[in-house]
């Protein structure tokens, strides 16, 4: 089985038409569907959170079949993700896309679970610790994208599950849970 990093590529990744944006509606719908799944799965495994259209993205090129997605195709697939709420455009020019292979709500749940698992229901923890601390190692939180984390925190703050407070520097930003 072919791999791209840690990610197992499905067979149809080597199907040349997979890399050509199909004109026939039904065919295109299926194609978009498959690409959406593929992008989310790939980003999850590889822990990627942002796709920049102008940069090389390994998933969009198949070196075996020598096919590459056109810009038009890339935008089409990412826009489909955005429409589904599984991604967000980070700029008006649609050059950068934030991939939500977990929805923000899911991340919030993961955070709460993390707090529970580590006895932080009333505790305090820094952002830094959440992202790169020893407790988070092995969890999905480890290495989480800053933007996404902030969004999740905001969501939880609104629900009253925690409070974010700033420290003397950005690295000192902390959270006080009140689960």
């Amino acid at each position, binding site marked *: 089985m072919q791999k791209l990093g840690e990610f197992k590529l499905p*067979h149809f990744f080597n*199907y040349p038409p997979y890399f050509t944006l199909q004109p026939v509606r039904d*065919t295109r719908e*299926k*194609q978009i*569907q498959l690409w959406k799944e593929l992008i989310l799965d790939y980003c999850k495994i590889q822990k990627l959170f942002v796709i920049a259209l102008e940069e090389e993205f390994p998933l969009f090129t198949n070196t075996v*079949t020598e096919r590459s997605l056109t810009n038009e195709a890339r935008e089409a697939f990412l826009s489909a993700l955005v429409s589904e709420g599984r991604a967000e455009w980070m700029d008006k020019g649609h050059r950068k896309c934030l991939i939500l292979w977990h929805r923000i709500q899911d991340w919030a749940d993961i955070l709460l679970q993390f707090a529970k698992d580590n006895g932080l229901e009333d505790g305090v923890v820094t952002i830094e610790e959440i992202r790169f601390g020893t407790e988070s190692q092995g969890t999905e939180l480890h290495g989480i994208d800053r933007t996404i984390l902030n969004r999740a925190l905001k969501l939880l703050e609104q629900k009253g599950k925690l409070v974010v407070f700033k420290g003397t520097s950005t690295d000192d930003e902390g959270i006080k849970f009140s689960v």
Partner: protein
Amino acid sequence: MAGNSLPPVNLTDNGRPVLLPNEIECFFLSGVDLLCEDEPNSWFPHLKSGLLILTTHRLLWLPDTAVASSSSASAVHLSSISHIFPNKKSLKSVFASRRIRFQVSPETGSRSVVVTVVVRGKGDFDAFVAKFWENWRGRAWEESEKVASSSSNAVAGAGSASSGSGIYSSDGTVRMVGVSGILRKEQEMWESTDKSLQDAFQDLNALMSKAKEMVMLAEKMRLKLLSGSNSQTNTTNDEEMGSKEEMQELLLSVGIISPVTKESAGALYHQQLSRQLADFVKVPLERSGGIINLIDIYCLFNRARGTELISPDDLLQACSLWEKFDVPIVLRKFDSGVMVIQNKSHSDEEVFTKIKALVMKPDALRAGISPSDAARTLGVAPAMAKEHLLSAESKGILCRDVSPDGFRFYINLFPEIDRDDVYLVKDQGIYPSWVRAIPALG
């Protein structure tokens, strides 16, 4: 002073010499003396400073009109010249006037004398001498005599056409002189060529006269048809109408212009055209595998017609009329806008089946197919094959692959892939066949 026994030259009112039949003037020299230095000389006059005209028959000497001369226009017939002396160039001749001598005998029987032509005026003397020799040797008067004797028999008693002035010579033919003479010679040549051509075209004329008969026959039929179609009274004339239609078709096929013009019976014209087109299309359609581009038919049809070309509009109208008749062909428009003519029996399903079979072959599974590959299998033109591939694509049978390698088509795998388990490949089906064919996945 010698007597003048030279035959005179008749002059016209304008001073032009009257020429003999077929006599043509060849050379003019001015300031010419003709004199005889022999002693005794009883008959050759001393002609001083006149105009010398060399013709095909004679040497004419005309007195210079500006100078009062006692001599009159005289002629020396070339036949009376027995010898021309070669021109000896000597020191003396360089300084003296140019001259040439010849020996001449009179008609009367007196002794022959040597005459000198002294050229004091300007003129190409050498050319004159050359022409003199040529004409003297040419003996053009002998031919004239033959002609004269034969035609005079035919023209005997034809009237006293004066041999003097006037454009008609004694034998009734138009006299042409000088440049006209040359032109006449050309004319004669053309006439003889023409005659031989005429002989060659005997058969063609016979053919043409037959064709005239054919055209007259067609004309009669045309009138009959016209009178018949005008009096469309009752339906019992159906049989007649049928045969009349047949006649029209016959006429059309022979290539004769249809009796009805486009203006007088617009619909009928298109009907006829429509039928004619349907007949014509049969052969090209077969040759191109049952489907042919409309543009190709337009070109082929007009080329076959030669004249009476039809406009694209006419063609379209004619094709659209096929629905009304019972013809086995239809006009079809593809999504891409391409218009084709195809057999009614043409089945898209059949084509799709063939395409599916082609695209499931191991090579095609690996690398797809191009329009040319399809063209070869389907037996149609590549442009037509592409249309078929595109319509198969729109039906979900194929998928396109656009790359720097070109435009290719593959079997459509997308429906076979399970969206909930993208890694799943069943045992049977198109997807597993495809997977098996790809070495990279093995």
